[in-house]
């Protein structure tokens, strides 16, 4: 009885996850086909896999387009997985890292590095990572009252985000004009800025942390039952919360270091994945894939739809702002977030 029910929804979840993976790969290939010099899918794939004999194709694909496309894939995977974990641990659809200050912490630290110390490359990545981790720790400690209540975490996080954004604004306003311009570009977020070091760091982070989160997903399902429910089932809720959020913060920090604080991806990916997946399947993986599709689609729009290219973060912002308004209205009407 339950077995049949479970099998049916597991099949559906597998089909959905497979479809999302195919979608992410297609977007990856398409993004490398388009440009002033249009290539076919075969040429792109051959070149990526190192089977191409055409040096011109190789140059366009591997040198010009692959870094940007890979950054889009990885940033989406990282933000999607991290956002879904944050929302589920804190049981609030608004509790994405870009809303509760984690991305803001990475931004402030990066802008400070840029403006105050003239840092670049690896230095900026390290600054961003430190900023995100420090902010997460600060929010965790400020929200601590002998335990972590999810709503307090979210409220403290929103407050910290506003504080950090004003610090960032102050830093930009005091900066040299060229630094300020660079900072503003970075703050909007774009997958076209990452260097090899940032991409490699992000790829390594995704390869390690996403599987860890997938292995932890059954524990996340228990943690979702609240501190008392989790304890009753033999899980230590405080320690588990710290581990899950810690993993998610690393992903957010590495993604932000590579592409800036691309808005709303972490907020949107989890709920979309949950809707598509139904009650079974691995939400972490599906959210990562949805995030990857969102970022890639947004970057395709940013690059190719308008007569001149814009930053990826502008497109996600345009889609995300109405979404968050809808979420707030719905939350208000129901009394609780869904």
């Amino acid at each position, binding site marked *: *009885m339950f077995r049949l029910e*479970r099998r049916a929804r597991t099949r559906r979840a597998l089909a959905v996850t497979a479809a999302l993976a195919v979608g992410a790969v297609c977007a990856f290939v398409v993004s490398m086909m388009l440009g002033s010099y249009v290539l076919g899918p075969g040429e792109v794939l051959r070149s990526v896999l190192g089977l191409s004999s055409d040096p011109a194709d190789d140059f366009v694909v591997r040198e010009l387009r692959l870094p940007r496309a890979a950054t889009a894939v990885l940033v989406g995977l990282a933000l999607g997985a991290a956002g879904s974990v944050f929302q589920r641990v804190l049981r609030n659809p608004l509790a994405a890292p870009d809303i509760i200050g984690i991305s803001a912490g990475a931004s402030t630290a990066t802008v400070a590095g840029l403006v105050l110390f003239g840092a670049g490359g690896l230095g900026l990545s390290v600054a961003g990572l430190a900023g995100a981790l420090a902010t997460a720790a600060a929010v965790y400690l400020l929200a601590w009252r002998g335990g972590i209540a999810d709503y307090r975490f979210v409220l403290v996080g929103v407050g910290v985000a506003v504080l950090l954004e004003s610090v960032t604004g102050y830093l930009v306003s005091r900066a040299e004009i060229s630094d300020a311009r660079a900072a503003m570009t970075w703050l909007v977020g774009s997958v076209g800025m990452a260097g090899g070091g940032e991409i490699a760091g992000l790829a390594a982070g995704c390869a390690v942390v996403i599987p860890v989160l997938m292995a932890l997903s059954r524990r996340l399902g228990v943690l979702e039952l609240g501190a008392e429910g989790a*304890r009753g*089932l*033999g899980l230590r809720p405080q320690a588990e919360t710290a581990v899950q959020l810690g993993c998610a913060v690393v992903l957010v920090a590495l993604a932000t270091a590579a592409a800036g604080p691309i808005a709303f991806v972490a907020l949107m990916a989890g709920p979309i994945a949950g809707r598509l997946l139904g009650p079974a399947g691995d939400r972490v993986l599906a959210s990562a894939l949805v995030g990857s599709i969102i970022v890639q689609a947004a970057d395709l729009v940013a690059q190719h739809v308008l007569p001149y290219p814009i930053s990826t973060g502008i497109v996600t912002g345009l889609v995300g702002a109405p979404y968050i308004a809808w979420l707030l209205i719905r939350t208000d009407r129901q009394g609780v977030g869904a």
Partner: protein
Amino acid sequence: MSEHSLEVAGLTLGYDGADIVSGLSTDIPAGAITAIIGANASGKSTLLRGLSRLLAPRAGQVLLDGVPVHGMRSGDLARLLGLLPQSPVAPSSITVGDLVGRGRYPHQGWFRSWTPADDAAVDEALEATGTADLVSRRVADLSGGQRQRVWIAMALAQDTDILLLDEPTTFLDVNYQIEVLDLLVDLNRDRGKTIVMVLHELSLACRYADHLIAMKDGRIVTEGAPGEVVTAATVEEVFSLRCDVIADPRSGTPLVIPLGRHRLRSARE
């Protein structure tokens, strides 16, 4: 039949300020239904939280088969002792089957996937609680009584010999209260589960429990079979309520008739 002994020895519990429960000792009878009763702020829910390890003791111990529960590994305890909190929370879109399935967590290891034994346990829990038809429904869409039965199903899927419930009938309509209590008696009789629950409704506690623990100001006023310990004098002491206690004409258990200031025949005569 549950053979596990649960014993409270000199337990002192509290939150931030003063002790709520102080130096309390009692034995929970194995294989029976125990109801903890008392007025608001008598410490009855606090005691249950102490039994289930939601609250660490300031002094004393809770002993499960002679072993202090606060020293046990979380997973080991969760296979022996299940808990239904007063206001359990679930993700809003979760389905009944998914929720009940999460009760299997203590029986699953890091990399062990879902097994036929897990399926069987979930099926049995759904069957026992009469929620099998609801398996693909969203928990949020159920009635209060259905939802409470689903939560009990989750606790059953956990497959523990001891089940602790914090006010399982609060917020339920009276027909659902009876339904839930009947279900708990079934579980006790058919599966020999030891059940400990905090209950508000005194006469229902008398009817459904084998053993009552009456608390006031964090200590036990009296404990024992309802027929022996529930008298007008103890009710007055525990609840500060004047009452008559008569035999329930349908069950023979004590029935508490509160004496207010109005609407009483004898008061007019």
